[in-house]
């Protein structure tokens, strides 16, 4: 067994510095690496390029990094629900690149699995296609899209073991799975870190080979963005 476990978030994020490109998992606030985000705020690094589907809300998730103006550029598919984000974007303080969600996911996965580029129909004929190579397959135009390059991918899983194997819960798998191993160093924070051998190999979603550092988060707020209920 190759041990991937580190003691805490500080050790897990060693080497993260200003002006790096970071991938961060999660969809909305679901499955975001809360402990790592808190540490990035504490580290006070700046000029970050963030690849993340969303930008958090004003006072949680990546919104915390936006508040401190630590992010230079956001690469996302959807950035609503964040007033500070909108302000920084409209004032030109923050650079924003919007990408179709499926293309965003696949550019992560391409980086994960060593595919430099791929063709997808998403965005053809729109602003997204500007400057991109177009090729027809079976008469349908597709855009050439490239794998992302990131210094760190920072993800969150439900359970993990000291070998770096990961299991996600419900829809918190989202971008966390395709971002695993998609950066030069992959840091995984988990709710429960178990000794190797405690997780059933049949149930592993992401094998430890994709993970360089794993740690158990100290605290998970797991905030709900839209609490919707059915009346009894």
């Amino acid at each position, binding site marked *: 067994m190759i041990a991937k476990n580190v003691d805490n978030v500080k050790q897990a994020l060693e080497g993260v510095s200003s002006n790096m490109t970071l991938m961060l998992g999660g969809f*909305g606030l*679901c499955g975001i690496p809360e402990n790592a985000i808190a540490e990035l705020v504490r580290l006070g690094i700046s000029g970050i390029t963030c690849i993340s589907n969303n930008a958090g809300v004003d006072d949680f998730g990546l919104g915390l990094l936006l508040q401190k103006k630590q992010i230079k550029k956001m690469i996302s598919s959807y950035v609503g629900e964040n007033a500070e984000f909108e302000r920084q974007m409209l004032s030109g303080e923050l650079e924003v690149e*919007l990408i179709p969600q499926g293309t965003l*996911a696949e550019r992560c996965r391409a980086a994960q699995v060593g595919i430099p580029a791929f063709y997808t129909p*998403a965005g*053809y004929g729109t602003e997204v296609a500007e400057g991109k190579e177009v090729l027809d397959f079976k008469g349908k135009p597709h855009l050439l899209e490239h794998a992302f390059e990131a210094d760190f991918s920072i993800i969150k899983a439900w359970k993990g073991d000291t070998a770096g194997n990961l299991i996600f819960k*419900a829809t*918190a798998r989202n971008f966390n799975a395709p971002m695993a191993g998609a950066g030069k160093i992959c840091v995984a924070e988990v709710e429960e870190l178990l000794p190797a051998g405690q997780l059933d190999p049949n149930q592993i979603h992401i094998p430890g080979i994709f993970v360089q550092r794993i740690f158990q988060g100290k605290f998970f707020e797991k905030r709900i963005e839209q609490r*919707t209920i*059915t009346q009894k």
Partner: protein
Amino acid sequence: MALDKNGIAKRIAQEVQNGYYVNLGIGIPTLVANFVRDDLEVEFQSENGILGMGPFPFEGEEDADLINAGKQTITALPGASYFDSSLSFGMIRGKHVDLTILGAMEVAENGDIANWKIPGKMVKGMGGAMDLVASAENIIVAMQHTNRAGESKLLKRCSLPITGVNCVKKIVTDLACIEITKEGFLLLERAPGVSVETIKKATAGTLIVPVDVPEMSL
């Protein structure tokens, strides 16, 4: 009388067939699930990673790890499955999802759709909409026939930045059910009590009006 949001959803629910996997967008499309006939076997997909999406949970049973693409807390029905975002869009791109229902700001008579950006005003992003409209073969748009200023949303050409080209197949609005054809918007049905004249006035693009335009049966 023009349909309300539930009326639009109810009419669209009639398009859902047995054995369909369906992706529902945010807004009116979400309501469609409430009106699908009980005897049909249908599974709802949410692109953040679930097939077999169920209703909202009862109070106290919400799970922060179980949401839909609108970030709302949901439940999973028997037979449900979870997957990552890459595989989710693989289902969509690979045409495994049978029906996509989404909202729009504008639809053009050639099937172009605009629903992600108002330059200088609203820039929230396209989310999964561009992937959905580029790959889905059966796309129904749910929207109001006119915008808040009373201007038609069914146009010759979209004025807003488009989300996808030649992709919309059908539109259900508060006034009518319309099919996109090579010749333009074909009026299929009127909302109960709404005249052909009213629909004509509210449609800026080419509207083809057959001799007989029945009322929707809801």
